[in-house]
Each structure stands twice: as C-alpha cells, then as structure tokens.
C-alpha cells in the first residue's frame, strides 16, 4: 500500500474505487484509519476486538461503496459502517457468551483483553499516572454500558461528533442518540463516583467518618481528685 499524497477528496476517492481504481480505497482508508481505530478501540474495548471490528467494517465499506449516495460525508458513512460492524460483533459475542459478564470490573480486567488495553505512559510523572488511572477506570466503566449507549458516547463525547452526525452513523433518530447518551452518562456517573471532582484534590479520604468528639460531661470522669 503506497502512502503517496493524493489530493482527491474523499468522495472522489470513493467514486474512483467504485469505478475500479484499485488504490483508491486504500488511500481513503489510510486517510481516516486513526480516527476509525479510536472509535473501534473505545467501542470494542481492546485492540484485538477493535481490529476485528474494523476489519469487518472495512470489508463492508469496500463492498458496499457503490451504495454510497453522497447524501452524507464519506467519513460519516465510513464511521457508520465501522460502528455497525463493531456493534454486530458485540451482539454476536453477547449471544455466544455462555456466562454473564461479571459485575466486578477487576475480575473482568483479569481476563486479559481489558488488561491489554491499559497503557502506561512511559514518561511517568505522578500527574500522568493519575491521568492514566483515571482513563483506565473510565474505559473500564464504559465497557459496562450496553453497546448502543457506549457507541453513542464514544461518538459524541469522545470523538466530538454532533448528535445529528452520530445519529447518522448509528442509523437512528437524533432523539435516540440523546437518550442513549443521557442514560449512559448517568450510568457512568454512578460507576465513576470515585472520580467525582470533590474527591480529586483536597478531598476527605474515603472510608468511615472520623469519630465524633466525646460528649462533654458535666461531671469529671476518672479517679476522684485528691482532696
């Protein structure tokens, strides 16, 4: 796959692909792959599944390019195909799974795929470590959401697409995207209470509250004072 610059627009590349340009699709994909990868990573939760989902989407987009009618941006269409491929995989995995997901995040993390998604910043200052830990918890919590809510949040809150664009990508009404985002945020807020702002800095340590001061007594305790 060559990486030579190509000044054609996305739509021109897609049209060229449909008309038999064997390099056009590769160029188009290379142009958007990092962002598609980001979406797949956060939707699927780990690199292996993300690569599989992205490959499904890639093949679907390649084969269905002729159905692109130009009523959306090519990048929107690409995201739509990839996100739907990821969701298909998640649904299939859910069907295949004989055992339900454990409630405990750590238990899930120990299974490997989640653990492999955790990256450690080699620069390693304390702030960076804190940021990494926070991201890890957010990603882990995100994985506990239903796939549709997760996909909506990934597109809107992580990737910064508008609700309308996300609706187009998810092939649903804008109101549905809003609703999924709203429910997903509530769920995340519950799951991520450990990250609430007041606990970030100068917060009261978690745990039992400090014992109350002793109630003053009107009479002194202890051995009687010597006369």
């Amino acid at each position, binding site marked *: 796959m060559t990486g030579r610059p190509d000044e054609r627009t996305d739509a021109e590349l897609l049209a060229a692909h449909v008309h038999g340009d064997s390099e056009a699709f590769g160029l188009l994909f290379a142009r958007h792959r990092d962002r598609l990868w*980001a979406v797949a990573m956060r939707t699927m939760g780990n690199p292996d599944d993300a690569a599989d989902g992205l490959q499904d989407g890639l093949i679907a987009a390649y084969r269905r390019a002729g159905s692109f009618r130009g009523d959306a941006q090519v990048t929107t269409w690409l995201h739509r195909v990839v996100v739907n491929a990821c969701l298909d995989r998640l649904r299939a995995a859910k069907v295949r799974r004989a055992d339900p997901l454990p409630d405990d995040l750590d238990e899930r993390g120990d299974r490997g795929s989640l653990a492999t998604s955790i990256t450690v910043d080699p620069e390693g200052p304390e702030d960076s470590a804190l940021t990494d830990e926070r991201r890890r918890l957010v990603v882990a919590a995100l994985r506990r959401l239903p796939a549709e809510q997760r996909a909506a949040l990934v597109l809107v809150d992580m990737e910064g697409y508008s609700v309308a664009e996300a609706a187009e990508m998810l092939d649903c009404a804008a109101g549905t995207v809003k609703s999924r985002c709203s429910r997903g945020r509530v769920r995340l807020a519950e799951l991520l209470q450990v990250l609430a702002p007041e606990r970030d800095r100068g917060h009261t340590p978690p745990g039992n509250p400090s014992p109350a001061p002793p109630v003053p007594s009107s009479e002194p305790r202890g051995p009687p004072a010597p006369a």
Partner: protein
Amino acid sequence: MTDQHEPDPTRDLTPDEEAHVRRLLADARHTDPMPGDVVARLDRVIAGLAEEPAREATVVRLADRRRRVTRLLVAAAAVVVVGFGGSQVIGGIGGMGASNDAQVGAEEEPAAGQADEQAEAGDESAEVPSSQPNEAPTAVPDRLARIRPQSFAADTQALRDGARNYVTDQDLQSEERSALLDVCTSGAWGTGRYVAVRYAGDPGWIVFRRPQGSTQVADLFLCGSELASRSLTLPYP
C-alpha cells in the same frame, strides 16, 4: 442503606455532573495511532479485496445471469446425483469439515501464477460456481434460514457452523425449491459458498468467501441487488 454504586436510571445528572462525565470521556479518548501490525493486516485485507473484482469481472457478465442460474440448477442437481448424501452435503456446506480442508487450503492465497490460471480456468467454473462442490449451492436450507438484522453476526456464524440444520435440495418440496430458486437467483456476486437465507423477511443469499488465514468473510446479498447488503468477517475455522 442503599448501595451508592447502584445506578438510578431515572435520575438526571446536574449540569455540573454531566459536564464532568463528558470531560472524563473526552479525556479518555483513544489517541494512539493504529498499531503497525493492524495497519499491515488491514492493508493485506484491502489488497486481497482488490484482487477480487478483477477475477470476477473476467468471469462474470451480467447478461449471462439468466444462463448462469439455469446452469446453477443443473449443477446443483448433478452434485446431489453424484453421491453427496445428505449428511455429507451438510458437513461440506456448513462445517468446513476435514474433507474440505484440503480444498479450502488449496484455495487459500493462490500464487500469482495460480491466480491467472484460476482467472482463465474460472471462465466456466466461476460463472457456474456450482461446478465446484466447495463453492456450489449443493444444498439449500430447510426452508430459508432466517438471519435477523440485530444478530446478523451470530446468525451467520450459526448458519455456517450449524450445518446439520440443512438438507439437500432433494428433501425440499418441489414448490419450495422452485420458490427459492425463482425468487433468489444469485447475482454476479463472485465465488464462494452460497446459502439461501431470509433476512428481515427478504430472501437473499449469504456467500461464504474463501477463508483467508484465520478469518472468513461472509457477504449478504438480497435478491435483486447487485451489492452486498452486509458483510462480516468470521473466525476460521
């Protein structure tokens, strides 16, 4: 005492809480580029896909579709006659069993010379895919297998793996066979293993492509459409 981590779906977040959650999500965005091994893998996939149209364009002409369907019928019947018993056909269709492994393996990653050979020799064989047992619709589903849109991947994998659900076309009532082949004449969809299905009520075909390494692509074509409606990569075997 209530569990503070128990979500309350009816609760609305305050604007501050919502902003905080959104900020956390934005901060957790994946920012690393696609890893090199994934780039290489997907580039290989694209290169593999790019080989297909040339091969298929050489061997498929839309004007021949009608003739191809007729041949398809004849070839499918021939395959049954030459002794593919019910269970054997079933094993061949869905399970990619041992008997098919050699053939499948031989199909994988043809060398450049082989590809040309295949393209030439394929003028007939690809035009009438059913002349090769591995690629032919040698059996049709017991009535049409249902593929649900919301569980496309699971149903398609089950379709491939659950071969014993299917019977040879001899076992179908004649009107069913007729309806299947009349309604679902296959298009210029390339080589692969064809299984007739009903998707969201619409008849069509799932085409299981030649496995590539540890994966196999399945395409859904609805009747009357030249384009794949959905595609899926399945683990293989």
